[in-house]
């Protein structure tokens, strides 16, 4: 791993315009969410950005043209919405540690965020990762515009409710999975 690329300082410098304001991190590009679903999620972010001008919304946009078209059309003219080109992994990790909460359709982020104690709202109707749903660290919000606005706005405005969504431990792993997997491979456990 290239440690110099991971350093926090350049990322905080690159994103200096965020200041110390609350930030919502957004990602979304799954095949089944394209079209109407993505449009509704973008409109919800638009509503939220207008309702809460004191909050910054950061959205690294996937290179897939059908994603970029919708996102740019709905969100490019708002001062507190920052559409980024796809970011490298250490920069994304920095954004995750910096954010207040995450709105995403990604599976991996649902697995990572509990380790950082960041609540995740998932813009899908189903998830194969149900372990964190029980503790409310992760919630499915679907792709209904009004519902997404209600849930995100609720968490931005209620620090007690927010604190209840912060995971105490990560049900998906402890950071030693590779060690166990490689031990199985070494012992030809198949």
């Amino acid at each position, binding site marked *: *791993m*290239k*440690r110099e*690329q*991971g*350093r*926090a*300082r350049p*990322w905080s410098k690159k994103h200096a315009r965020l200041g110390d304001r609350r930030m919502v991190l957004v990602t979304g590009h*799954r*095949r*089944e969410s394209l079209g109407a679903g993505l449009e509704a999620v973008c409109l919800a972010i638009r509503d939220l950005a207008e309702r809460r001008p004191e909050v910054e919304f950061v959205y690294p946009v996937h*290179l897939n043209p059908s994603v970029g078209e919708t996102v740019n059309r709905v969100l490019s003219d708002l001062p507190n919405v920052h559409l980024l080109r*796809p970011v*490298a*992994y*250490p920069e994304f*990790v*920095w954004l995750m*540690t910096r954010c207040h909460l995450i709105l995403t359709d990604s*599976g*991996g982020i649902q*697995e*990572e965020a509990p*380790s*950082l104690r960041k609540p995740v709202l998932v813009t*899908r*109707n*189903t*998830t*194969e*990762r*149900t*372990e964190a749903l029980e503790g409310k660290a992760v919630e499915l919000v679907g792709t209904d515009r009004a519902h997404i606005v209600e849930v995100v706005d609720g968490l931005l405005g209620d620090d007690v409710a927010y604190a209840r969504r912060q995971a105490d431990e*990560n*049900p*998906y*792993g*402890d*950071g*030693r*999975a*590779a*060690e*166990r*997997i*490689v031990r*199985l*491979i*070494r012992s*030809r*456990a*198949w």
Partner: protein
Amino acid sequence: MTAVRPLILVGTRPEAIKLAPVIAECSRHPREIDAEVCLTGQHRGLLTPFVDYFDIPVHHDLKAIRSRQNLSDLTARMLKRITKLLEEVKPDCVVGQGDTTTVMAGALAAFYLQIPFVHVEAGLRTYDPTQPWPEELNRRLVSVAASLHCAPTPLAAEQLRAERVAAERIHVTGNTVVDALLETVRCSRP
């Protein structure tokens, strides 16, 4: 005893992130493991920065991606190229992660050649073949073909047992994405 020779398949960005800790751990045991890494060329433009960041050694690059190809073309091309590579390399096992076309074609190619397949992040299910599409089908196919199932959580392991996957082939390892995340957070401390 001679070193185990796994061939590790990496297609998309999430696979690079989630297999990077496994590849790094293999390199910590050079006398016992001699791993080779194959990029299949899914999402190539998006993949390079991740391969660079995690210092993933690339031994083979199948370049199976074409613009505007459908899933049948991608699957067929991937299956042929992975098969050819397996015939050349003759690894002791093939390792793939998750629910992509890469892992599905890799498991099928290994199965046909009777090479054990190690599935990382096994046992995730929505039980709705259209959600996520086509990933739910991919991972179910892999569970039928694989010889070793590395389940991230007890729930995933339970789901595999419910499908009558042999219990002794299922191991709860945790999810490697947490390994990658915690290592990146460690590296980014100023």
